[in-house]
Each structure stands twice: as structure tokens, then as C-alpha cells.
């Protein structure tokens, strides 16, 4: 119980700290009206963000890998990461339209089927391994690993809504489109936009753009959001729309079959053999008495 509370506290603290590092342009005006930020600190801020986000990621990984000392889970994760990295490798060699990428489909389904911890590691290490083999290692990697980890980790929350819905459908004996796949597809669609929006925060405060789109010191919270939305609409919306629609279509087309295969293997992978211990005193008593 104590271990679970610790786990939860570390996950929350590292996730919130990581979010704070990325979202500082929005809350800074609330905290301070001091001038001198923004492009003035453009030299040090990216390095500082990389450092802090990297440290939050390190803590999350250490906590998530805690119970990984199980050969089945290690092998499962290694092979799934390899398959997903192969998909990214193929995508790098033969680029798809816009921001289309096939990797999030598997990250979401693995997170949903195997749980948040495996989902987080799947997302983070898909980015890491594919960056190693495609030469994509750079200061942006901690941010990519963090965000892709969130994609996998948060997929488990869908169960809170889907399971009661599935139960109700079963009771009413209704047939039609699988709500599970539909919910996962919508989730993939949303993350298609969110992933791009989060990764944009990496450079947005340091870009000198037109008035009304760039980050400026002294703007209020609402105005900062408005500027960011304008910047996002102009620079990223089309790219991310293709990514989001790609996620939606991939989950609708392959989701049911993939989920079925993952669940079949989950029964084989996620079990632990614990030999039933005989009460020693009784056995010894029988030996001595017999």
C-alpha cells in the first residue's frame, strides 16, 4: 500500500512538473509582471527546458520500470518497441502526407490493453529507439519521449468510461459499432492535435513572429492563449489534422484485430507463477510423526 502511494505521488509530481516546464508561457503572466523574459532568455531557456524535462522523464522512467523485472514484460516491451520503431523507420524512409505517422496507433492500443505503466514505457521508448536508429536524437527528444509516454499512459483512463458502456450494451443486447474502438479512435484523433500542440510549446516562446501570434511578456493568461491558438492555427493545424485523421483511420481499420491479439497475448504474458507454499510446521509434523 505504501509503495502504491509513493508510486502515485512520484507519477503525479513528475508529470505535473513536466507540464509546468512546458506550459510556463501561460502561467508566467499570472505569477509575475516582470519584464526581461521571452526572447531575452531565448539563449538559456531551451537548454533549461531540456534539462528539467529530461530530469522529470528520468524520474518517471525509474518509477515506471520499477516492476519491470519480469522477463515476460521486458521481452514483450522490447519486441513491441521494435515493431513500432520499424513502423517509424519505414515512415522516415517513405514519408506519408503531412504529419501522418503510424506509431501512435500501437502506443494507444498497448497502453489501453496492458495499462498505463507499460503504455508510458512503450511511448517513451518507441521515440528513444526510433531516434537512435533514424538519427533523430536531439534536444527535442526528452519532450517527444515525455509526450508520447503520456499518450500511452493516459489511454488507460478510457477504461473508466468504456467498461460501464460496454456492460450496459451487453445487458441491453444492442449491436452496432464497437464503442470501444470508436472511443479509442476519437482518443487517437484528439492526441493527434494535442501532441503537435504540446511539441510546439518547445519553440513557440522563442520565435519572433507577427503581432498577435508570438509570445510577449506582460500579456495576460487569456491573451497568451489567444496568441498561441492563432500561432497553432496558422503553423500546425493542417499538419496535425493529417496526423489526427491518420490515427483515427488506423484505429478504426486495425484497432479491433490488434486489440484482440494483444489481449490474447496478455493472458500469456501477464501472469506470475507463485508456488503454493505448504504450511511448513504441518509438513514437518507429518514427517516427524510418520
Amino acid at each position, binding site marked *: 500500500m505504501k*509503495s502504491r502511494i*509513493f508510486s502515485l505521488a*512520484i507519477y503525479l*509530481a513528475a508529470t505535473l*512538473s513536466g507540464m*509546468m*516546464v512546458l506550459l510556463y508561457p501561460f502561467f*508566467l503572466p499570472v*505569477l*509575475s509582471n516582470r519584464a526581461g523574459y521571452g526572447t531575452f532568455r531565448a539563449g538559456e531557456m531551451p537548454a533549461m527546458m531540456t534539462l*528539467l524535462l529530461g*530530469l*522529470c522523464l*528520468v*524520474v518517471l*522512467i*525509474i*518509477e515506471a520500470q520499477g516492476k*519491470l*523485472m*519480469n*522477463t*515476460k514484460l*521486458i*521481452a*514483450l*516491451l*522490447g*519486441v*513491441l*518497441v*521494435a*515493431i513500432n*520503431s*520499424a513502423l517509424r*523507420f*519505414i515512415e*522516415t*524512409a517513405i514519408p506519408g502526407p503531412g504529419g501522418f505517422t503510424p506509431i501512435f496507433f500501437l502506443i494507444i492500443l498497448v497502453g489501453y490493453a496492458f495499462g498505463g505503466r507499460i503504455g508510458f*514505457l512503450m511511448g517513451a*521508448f518507441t521515440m528513444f*529507439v526510433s531516434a*537512435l*536508429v*533514424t*538519427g533523430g*536524437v*536531439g*534536444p527535442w527528444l526528452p519532450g517527444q519521449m515525455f509526450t508520447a509516454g503520456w499518450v500511452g499512459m493516459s489511454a488507460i483512463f478510457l477504461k473508466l468510461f468504456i467498461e460501464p458502456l460496454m456492460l450496459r450494451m451487453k445487458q441491453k443486447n444492442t449491436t452496432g459499432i464497437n464503442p470501444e474502438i470508436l472511443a479509442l479512435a476519437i482518443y487517437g484523433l484528439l492526441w493527434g492535435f494535442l501532441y503537435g500542440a504540446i511539441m510546439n510549446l518547445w519553440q513557440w516562446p522563442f520565435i*519572433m513572429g*507577427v503581432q498577435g*501570434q508570438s509570445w510577449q511578456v506582460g500579456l495576460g493568461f487569456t491573451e497568451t492563449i489567444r496568441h498561441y491558438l492563432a500561432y497553432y492555427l*496558422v503553423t500546425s493545424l493542417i499538419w496535425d489534422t493529417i496526423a489526427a485523421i491518420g490515427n483515427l*483511420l488506423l484505429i478504426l*481499420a*486495425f484497432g479491433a*484485430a490488434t486489440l484482440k491479439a*494483444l489481449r490474447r*497475448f496478455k493472458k500469456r*504474458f501477464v501472469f506470475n507463477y507463485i508456488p503454493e507454499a505448504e504450511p511448513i510446521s504441518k509438513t514437518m509434523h507429518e514427517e516427524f510423526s510418520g
Partner: protein
Amino acid sequence: MKQPWAWVAWLVAVLVLLSITRNPLYLVIILLCIFIVGFSLRESGSGLLRPFSLWKFALWILAFTTVFNALTSHYGQTVLFTIPGNLPLLSGDVTLEAMVYGATNGLILIGMLASFMVLSLALPVRDLINLIPRPFFPVAVVTSIAVTYLPTTLRQFQQIREAQAIRGHQMRTLRDWLPLLMPLLVGGLEHAMQLAEAMTARGFASTNSVAGGRQVLPRVFLLFGVVMLAIGWIYNLSVNQTMGWIIIAAGVVLITIGLWQEGKQSHRTTYHRRTWGWQDILTLIVTLCILAIFLLPIPGLNRSSLYYDPYPKLSSPSFSPILGLAMLGLLTPGYFVLSRNHPGDKYSNAEKRILNGNPRL
């Protein structure tokens, strides 16, 4: 030069230089150094080759950042032309200053990307995985499995594609990918099962030191470390910059202690440890000197030329020969690699003995 940490030191020096200067003259020198080192590794580099051309990618980045900034940022006094109308983002003056600023951003991005590419060209993936610190032992194993299994996966994908094509399978719609994806996934998962059984049979994670329960103390350090990072970040941005740095440093120390404690629980055996050769030590010394010149307060050394802003009116960037010369120190690993590639050193001593018909052990 085979010591991974010497290469990491070189990479750190490159990244620090790229992040502290916006002077295009210095950026060009840094880029030249990176490309020369990368070029020297083309023949002898033991790392992976990239699936795309760096030159094309670099040109694309440079063109994109220059054009994007020129079209979206309408600051500057040297107006090249004006985009008429009320087009959102685009309408307004296109200035030379905005183009130079965008190109500078592009040079920094290219430098970062190219330096990491040089590292992955210089070191084989197993050396990169060996750099993963001891506390991350389980995820290092996961990474190792994934990197090893990746070529097999690509080969398997090709085989499945060919097998399906022989059966007359045609790729018309998105759903036609399913007969390719499912055998790949199921085959991979079966392989994972076999791998897990093999690992268990060899006693992986069977000892108490590895599979034993987790200690609480390291996690306490990690938790408080992360909390300190968050507090320090807010302090740094809003209240007091110096105090913020101190709190962040305290958080980093706590996390380091936590990681060290975690690392003590796992034991790792290295069969082939990379040794430090004189070339590695010299590279490390040169990179440390470069970092000292650019970061430490040295009396009489003027670093103002590192900063360059093309706005509001474009001016020629200043240049300090001492700083330019110091940057050339980044060529050190390239020099060692090229001297190793010398025709006289094509074969190792053992290989020379075998070629001479004297395979003495």
C-alpha cells in the same frame, strides 16, 4: 578513438557552442567542424547510416526556416518586397533582416541534428546503449532487445509482404495493410514469448539483488527532487532567478542521490570495457578547454562578438580570431579518425601478421 565518453564530451561542447552564439560566422565554423568530423567517419564509422541524406535535410531546414521567418516576421528596415492585401500572417514587408534571423535559426538546428548524427555514426548502437546508466538497467535491456530485434522486424515485414504478394494480395485500401500488420504483430509477440523463456532459463532477474523489492529511500529522494525542480522553476521565472537556480540545483542533487541509490541495487557485468586511449584523453582535454574558454570568466577575453542580432538594420557580424581559433578545437576527433584511416594503418597489427603469413597469437 573509441571511448564513448570522449565522443559525448565532444557532443556537449558542440551543443554548448551552438546554444551560446547567434553569430553566423561562428555558426558556419562550428558547422564546418561538425561536417569535417562526420566526413572523416564515413569510411571508418561503426555506427548506423541514416535512412535519408543529411545534405538534403540540412538544405530543407535552412530553406524552410529562412522563408518561414521572412514571410511571418515583418520586422527590419531593409524591405525586399511587400506582400499586399490582408492575408493573415503573410501580408506585410518581407525584410532581409528577417531572412538572416531565420537562416541563423536554421544553422543552429542543422548543427544540433548533424552533431547527434556524427555521434551515432561514430559509435555503434551497443556503445550508445552502454551509456545508459546503471539505475536504468531494465529499460537498457528493453532498448537492447528493441535495437537487436529491429532489423529482424524489417526483414520479417519484407517476407510477409512477399508472401502475401505471391498469394495475390493487392494494396488498394487502408484495410489491405491488415494482412501485413497482423502476422508481424503476432509473430513478434510469439518471438517475445520465446525470448522471455530463454531469459528465464538463463536465470535473468532471478537473483534477489535484481528482482528483490524496491527500497523506499531512493524513491523519497526522487520525489523530493522533482518537487524541488518544480518549485525552483517557478522561483526562477517569477521571484528570484538566483534563488531559483539554487533550488533547482538542490533538486538535481536529490535526484542524483536517488538514482545512485537505485543503481546500487542492480549489478551489471561488462565483458568488453572501452579503455581510454591517449587520443580519447586529448580529445577530452581539448573539449574541456573549449568549454572553459567560452563559459568561464577569463580576464581580457571579450566574448561580445558571440551575440549578433540582425534587427532592426542588418550589420556585418563582428569576429574574434581567438574565439574562432578555439572553435577549431572541435576538429580534434576528426583529425584522429583521419590519421587512423591513413593507408599505412589500414590493417591492425594482428591483421598485418596474418597477411604476412605469420598468424602469431
